[in-house]
């Protein structure tokens, strides 16, 4: 058995130690070498400080952290008998801004991680400037986000009971124009067909009609045998709701409900990242999990044929861009700006509570737990999506990404599979 080391530059850095047996990868140790101690910093602070501090865990999915933090407080208030009801407007604005964050992430991952990495894996480099494409659409969609949230990254515009912004129809029109611009990019560059027609595709047999960068990538992934690689446990979990996502877990073809109480975190040897499991089992989280549990016809059909292969996983994420663009536009159409923005008296505070906020971040389910005693945070727990996908696993089974990489013929191939999970190390090693 030989061991080779690889340093991955993702959002931050991860170190991978590959073990080889009989010429293929037999095990992988994933290590993160950074620690900031955000959970520790939150202790003894005022509960609402989490709204300012937690987004700063991550420069890519900061908005998801804000949403999880505000939901944790709201759930804690509710548990201690305070009525927290959001107006449909506040709810829709929160979902809209979160959808924008997911879109910018997925597109950047496609153009700045997957395509360049796949090109170097296959040795077929194109002369196109993929980074520019990524920056064009992510700039556009985060502008739409900033109309409601003030800035991206690191906004704190969501507060218990709603949002602080009070948009006018002019703001909504501006945001709509930006979403439409992003849709045009999706249609022309990514899939080469109108969004409506694209969303009408519901079976793997029509997959070939997709053109553009996504169509080309799918074709080449297929040719490179990526529909037969990257298989893992084929078990999925989703905790967040909204934007068309539903919570639940899927094993084989059975979808059942989940309870956040069964989520367990544990320390891992020689890594600053904690492992996480559900009833001692490993689950994959992220766009593929969301599509399977929400029973998206096209992804279900693709999954039926190729299971949880790299190809299925990559396509599920690009497909989510189309779904979210559509939902983002719909959310603006139905937005009634005359409704209240925030419906909770700011003076109404609960001094002791335990709250849990779950949200679907770009990379999967994000969970915040806040325990407040005598008006101060006594304990704060942040469980990020990458922990689900990248943990080493336990005695009985390997972690999700580790299992997907086992059997790879080379480090390069394994590293490509690793990146198909859209890894974020800055979140993982808070």
């Amino acid at each position: 058995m030989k061991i080779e080391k690889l340093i991955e530059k993702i959002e931050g850095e991860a170190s991978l130690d590959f073990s080889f047996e009989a010429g293929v990868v037999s095990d992988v140790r994933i290590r993160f070498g950074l620690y900031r101690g955000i959970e520790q910093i939150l202790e003894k602070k005022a509960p609402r400080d989490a709204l300012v501090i937690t987004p700063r865990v991550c420069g890519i999915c900061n908005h998801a952290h804000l949403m999880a933090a505000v939901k944790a407080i709201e759930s804690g208030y509710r548990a201690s008998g305070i009525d927290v009801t959001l107006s449909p407007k506040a709810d829709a604005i929160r979902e809209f801004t979160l959808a924008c964050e997911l879109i910018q992430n997925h597109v950047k991952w496609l153009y700045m991680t997957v395509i360049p990495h796949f090109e170097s894996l296959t040795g077929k480099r194109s002369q196109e400037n993929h980074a520019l494409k990524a920056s064009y659409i992510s700039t556009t969609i985060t502008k739409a986000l900033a109309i409601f949230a003030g800035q991206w990254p690191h906004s704190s515009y969501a507060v218990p009971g709603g949002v602080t912004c009070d948009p006018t129809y002019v703001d909504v029109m501006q945001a709509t124009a930006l979403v439409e611009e992003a849709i045009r990019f999706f249609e022309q560059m990514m899939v080469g067909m109108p969004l409506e027609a694209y969303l009408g595709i519901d079976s793997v047999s029509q997959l070939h009609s997709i053109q553009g960068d996504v169509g080309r990538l799918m074709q080449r992934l297929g040719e490179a045998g990526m529909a037969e690689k990257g298989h893992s446990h084929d078990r999925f979990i989703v905790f967040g709701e909204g934007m068309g996502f539903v919570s639940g877990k899927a094993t084989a073809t059975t979808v059942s409900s989940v309870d956040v109480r069964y989520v367990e975190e544990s320390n891992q040897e020689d890594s600053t990242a904690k492992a996480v499991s559900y009833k001692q089992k490993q689950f994959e989280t992220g766009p593929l999990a969301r599509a399977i549990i929400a029973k998206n016809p096209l992804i279900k059909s693709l999954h039926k044929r190729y299971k949880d292969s790299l190809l299925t996983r990559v396509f599920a994420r690009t497909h989510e861009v189309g779904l979210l663009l559509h939902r983002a536009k719909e959310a603006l159409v139905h937005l009634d700006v005359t409704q209240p923005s925030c419906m909770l008296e700011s003076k109404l505070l609960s001094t002791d509570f335990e709250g849990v906020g779950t949200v679907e971040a770009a990379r999967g389910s994000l969970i915040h737990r806040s325990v407040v005693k005598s008006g101060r945070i006594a304990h704060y727990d942040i469980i990020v999506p990458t922990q689900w996908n990248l943990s080493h696993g336990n005695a009985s089974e390997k972690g999700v990404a580790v299992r997907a990489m086992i059997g790879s013929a080379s480090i390069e191939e394994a590293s490509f599979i690793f990146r198909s999970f859209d890894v974020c190390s800055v979140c993982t090693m808070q």
Partner: protein
Amino acid sequence: MGIDKHDSVKSLFTAQSAKVNTNRGDAYYEKLYAQCRARLDELKALAPLNNRMDFKESIEEEGLDRRDFMKWASATTAMLMLPASFTPLVAEAAVLMNRVPVIWIELQDCAGNTEALIRSDGPKIDEIILDIISLEFNETLMAAAGHQAEKQLEDAVEHFKGKYLLFVEGSVPMGMDGYYGTIGANGETFIDHLTRLAKDAAAVVAVGSCATFGGIPAAAPNPTDAKGVMDVVKGKPIINIPACPANPSNMVGVILHYVLTGGIPELDSLLRPKFAFGYRIHDNCERRAHFDAGEFVEEWGDEGAKNNFCLYKVGCKGPMTFNNCSIVRYNEGVNWPVGVGRGCIGCSEPDFWDKYAYERPMANANIKAPTGGVEKSVDEFGLGLLTAAGVGIAIHAAASAVAGKKSEEN
């Protein structure tokens, strides 16, 4: 209000570091102009680094016309606090940004400043950033991985010895001998990595509040003993661009200034460029009129919020925060926190996370004014009295008196 309170409020609103001299007389600007001219001619003679795209070609490819570009150039000239006559020089400097190598490293960070940078503003300025600035190394932006990336960094350092601008994102963990943060195959600690790369840099630019003052990682109890770059790097010119995230306009501004003059911009006592941090959020706030009129948001979603009233009483830290957000705004100028009724959290001030954190209204918090002095509760400070009607106007009166004096001087 006692004398002491009066004086402390006055000193807060009239801090010397808050003064930025935007008119230094013709002789000064003529000399500077000549200096910039010579510098640009010198750069022009150099070949673009790393086969970067030619700026003129790339704006033409994008179908942008020169008018858009000049509009951006004149806005940037104003931002840098230079007279309008410098606009052609700034435009030229933008084109020459491909002559100055930039190395960008990430330490104890969240990659948020890189994210902000790639959605910088201007006429498709993302083109400028990604194609024109000679960004020799950036982990998040570059496709290279592993040993290949490390080699690229070593090559860049060697090749541009003494010439590159080192941009640092993230704080430096000093606890546990620096082992809270390591980088590369050999597990080099962040502090060693930074010291080594800073040694051969022309100047070090600390980007974001983590790199400048330690940021969120340095919040109490500062578990990793996180420090800002200026606390650990000695003997190099350091420019701090705090805020969380730092405003990309200010990052581009610093690079442009370096291209233009070959030097670093004028800095305040916290090493922040005065062109960006020479005035407070409050000075140019779009809601300022409501502060002056004593019209405040009392709680989220109330009538005041619907009417865009002043956010001071719900904890806005604009009056004590030096930054140009109220003018430059974020995300290509689309909006900024005060624009969505959230108020300023003071993210560009040292220790904002402990002293200014949003959900601790100023009236209850121990704060130290940016001007220094002893840490006091706001009641002792005098600002707590703002909750009493009419005191806002008293403060404003003090500020106006000073403003009047300032304009007489000019």
